[in-house]
């Protein structure tokens, strides 16, 4: 999906950024770090904007070279995003953040979208965070994800191609696998 958006954005003033949340990185994936990673991708894309450089130099001169705080980063993001024609922000596996960070992130995105309607947000997650997403974005379009029969067949074909015991396979077994598994999955 991110690659598809990148293809569409090529040659236009459109940015695409992506974040993958991970249970195993919960400590590191704070709201500040995640929003910072969005900025980082924007800065990587078109060079570091002057206002970011200035804020960095200012903070460097302050006592203790303080790190970025959430309100700072929200402000910097707003300033960076506004001149863009459009920005797509994709956050994968939102449910894998801690509940605290998840709420903070949704709230910050809500605040940014309010002044930057050029931002589009794509979220993925398990169904149990649905209420939370709707709380911050009541008009969000909800899309259930389940693999299509074609997807399952492509997947099975790939896996059968890397079978480690090909001797145990014959045409009938192969045909049964290709027929029965997609059927069973769509019944689930």
């Amino acid at each position, binding site marked *: *999906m*991110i*690659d598809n958006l990148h293809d*569409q954005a090529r040659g236009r003033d459109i940015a695409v950024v*992506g*974040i*993958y949340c*991970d249970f195993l*990185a919960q400590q*590191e*994936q704070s709201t*500040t*770090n*995640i*929003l*910072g*990673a969005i*900025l*980082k*991708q924007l*800065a990587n894309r078109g060079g*570091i904007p002057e206002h*970011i*450089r200035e804020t*960095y130099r200012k*903070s460097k001169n302050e006592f203790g070279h303080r*790190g*970025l705080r959430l309100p700072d*980063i929200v402000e910097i993001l707003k300033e960076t995003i506004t001149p863009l024609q*459009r920005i*797509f922000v994709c956050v*994968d*596996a939102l449910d894998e953040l801690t509940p605290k960070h998840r709420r903070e992130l949704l709230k910050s995105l809500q605040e940014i979208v309010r002044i930057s*309607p*050029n*931002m*589009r*947000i794509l*979220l*993925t*997650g*398990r*169904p149990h*965070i649905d209420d939370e*997403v709707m709380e911050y*974005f009541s*008009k*969000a*379009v*909800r*899309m*259930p*994800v*389940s*693999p*299509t029969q074609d*997807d399952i067949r*492509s*997947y099975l074909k*790939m896996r059968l191609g890397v079978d480690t015991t090909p001797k145990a396979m014959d045409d009938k077994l192969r045909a049964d696998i290709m027929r029965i598994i997609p059927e069973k999955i769509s019944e689930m």
Partner: protein
Amino acid sequence: MLSGRQQVTGNINSFNAWTRYNNIINITAEQDAERDQILQWLSPLEPQQRHEGVRTNRLDCVGNWALETDQFRKWCDVQDGCAELVLFYYGNPGVGKTYIR
């Protein structure tokens, strides 16, 4: 780098060219150091690395249905202010929200 040095040894003019060249390198190296510091200051996370992993492992064509839905197209294309800004794809673990591999 070494071949560059070999080429410029021999006469004074090219030696000057070499020092100038070195200065330029130093300046860009300095700017790059600040750039790296700023990127690190913005966030220690490296989501692009994870994206490379997903891109390498994902099965082509799988999940294309999601790109062809009206909702997705609208979300991408419709003018600001005329479309919903947020799409939420939900599903249980392993259904292919990130990718299928």
